[in-house]
């Protein structure tokens, strides 16, 4: 089973080394690997800029439209910036409990990602360092989880959550989100942990360290880029998640941001600029984090999924 259901696991290739370089020097440093290019590639450059346009045009449209008033939206050219930019749409969205939805999203994201990281890290450590049939079986179970569209299980999850009297609570979103984050987290973390040289563990063991101590004092520092990668990846998934909130919550007090966008769209359907302002506001926190931490984030994700 292990060899047949393993998904994102091409063999490890000098990654411990290249990760370290990536972290110290950042992506701008001169690389020693990858295709060397000495002549300018005009065709490639053209394609690259074309894709940028495809990415940017919708984002530009959303931002520009969110700054228009409704009359301006109906009369002006859709792609032109507003003649009289207004923040009224943002005020309208903020006045409609945006802060509460934001807080709900934050609670669910932190409440899912931190426990998921903790249990996945411990499991990855046990799977890589330990032996025995139980651990092999556990690992195979997680790998199986990668091949299954877990969304297919929403109906039993809905049943379990209602039976546990958790329907319409934030905990109802947190519990399955933790479970769904585990397979990919264990896979990436254990791929990185295999690269930690065995000698380091052995010398710590000779110093009388327990496994518990080795896990936190050796394995964790050595796999920190992977931990960050997995954390960010899961956080993006939970923050932007739509299906669990849709089926497991109902009232405005438990509404998270993606769901609030959808309900805004229903309530303000005629007021497109306000709907788009809610889209901008919901994305802004992630954009800020991205601007601050983009280098770590990109190099981490690249390394995490290319292993």
């Amino acid at each position: 089973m292990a060899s047949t259901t393993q998904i994102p696991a091409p063999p490890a290739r000098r990654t411990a080394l290249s990760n370290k370089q990536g972290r110290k020097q950042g992506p701008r440093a001169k690389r020693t690997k990858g295709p060397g290019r000495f002549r300018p590639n005009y065709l490639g450059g053209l394609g690259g800029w074309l894709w940028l346009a495809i990415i940017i045009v919708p984002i530009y449209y959303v931002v520009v439209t969110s700054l228009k008033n409704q009359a301006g939206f109906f009369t002006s050219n859709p792609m032109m910036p507003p003649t009289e930019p207004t923040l009224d749409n943002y005020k309208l969205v903020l006045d409609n409990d945006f802060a509460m939805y934001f807080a709900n999203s934050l609670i669910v994201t932190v409440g899912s990602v931190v426990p998921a990281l903790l249990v996945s890290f411990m499991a990855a450590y046990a799977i890589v360092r330990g032996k025995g049939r139980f651990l092999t079986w556990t690992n195979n179970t997680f790998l199986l989880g990668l091949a299954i569209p877990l969304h297919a299980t929403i109906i039993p999850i809905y049943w379990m959550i209602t039976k546990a009297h958790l329907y319409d609570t934030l905990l109802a979103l947190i519990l399955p989100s933790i479970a769904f984050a585990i397979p990919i987290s264990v896979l990436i973390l254990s791929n990185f942990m295999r690269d930690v040289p065995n000698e380091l563990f052995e010398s710590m063991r000779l110093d009388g360290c327990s496994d518990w101590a080795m896990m936190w004092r050796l394995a964790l520092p050595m796999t920190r880029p992977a931990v960050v990668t997995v954390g960010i990846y899961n956080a993006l998934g939970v923050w932007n998640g739509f299906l669990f909130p849709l089926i497991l919550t109902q009232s405005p007090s438990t509404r998270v941001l993606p769901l609030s966008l959808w309900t805004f769209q229903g309530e303000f359907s005629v007021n497109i600029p306000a709907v788009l302002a809610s889209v901008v506001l919901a994305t802004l926190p992630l954009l800020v984090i991205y601007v601050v931490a983009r280098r770590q984030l990109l190099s981490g994700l690249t390394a995490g999924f290319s292993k």
Partner: protein
Amino acid sequence: MSTSTGSSRRVLEKGPSGWLAAPALVFFLLFAIIPLFGVLFLSFTKWDGLGEIKLDGLSSWTTVLTDPVTGNALWVTAKIMFFSFIVQAPISLLLGVFTSASQKYRAALAVLYFVPLLLSSAAVAIAYKALLDPNFGLGPGLGLPFLAQDWLGNSDLVLFVVVFVIAWQFVPFHTLIYQGGVRQIPASLYEAAQIDGAGRVQQFFAITLPQLKYTIITSSTLMVVGSLAYFDLVFVLTGGGPGYSTRLLPLHMYLTGFKANDMGAASALGVILVVIGLALALLLQRLGGKNRNASQLEGA
């Protein structure tokens, strides 16, 4: 958890206790594996989502398998899977190679390429709904009449609109995977090829593509299995319409269960979804060959 702290030397030599894996396993069994059996069980019952669950034999399966909407949902899913793969795979491969090179402007572009990944599917769908509006969207904005169509109301066009929006959202992620893959190819291979006088296109086909074999399998598997999970984007963008033209299998399952209140039939659809996902994942792994731990660096 504390079992491993006070262990004896004998235990330490055996490696860490399996108990460390227990919390993750418990979560996963409880909220993924048990529901997996649960969905199979529920497919043999009748339940409206609120009242009692009653055993009902094969009637949900009969309903689902004779309903033409099921076949249509499978067909729509297959079409979207196919088209989104042939659109996304080459674009992300080329962009991955493009952004992995060392020029500064490419690194800057790579930073911008990532932005769609920050948006939720709901946000992307809402943005595109406004953008594709024939009166107030992109078409009139750019003064291009052919862009001013009723993209989401035309059942011949809407499928391709969905494929485009999916690509817009997910190509950035696969670009990252390919970028990482290309950066692990030893530069010595390219240097040798250049000495031999190989051009850029030749290098791409002779070195980059074969070296990326496992990256291609990873990315393709995620793309194909992932296309069974396109729910939120299509739900907000089209709701499955017009008619049934974008009613994908996961969306059909949701609407059957939570809108038509037929949880039995929806569970049967869920089982079909699981079986297809497993079959596709196994098939793709088989295509990739079994011995994936063999070195790819031979002759480097």
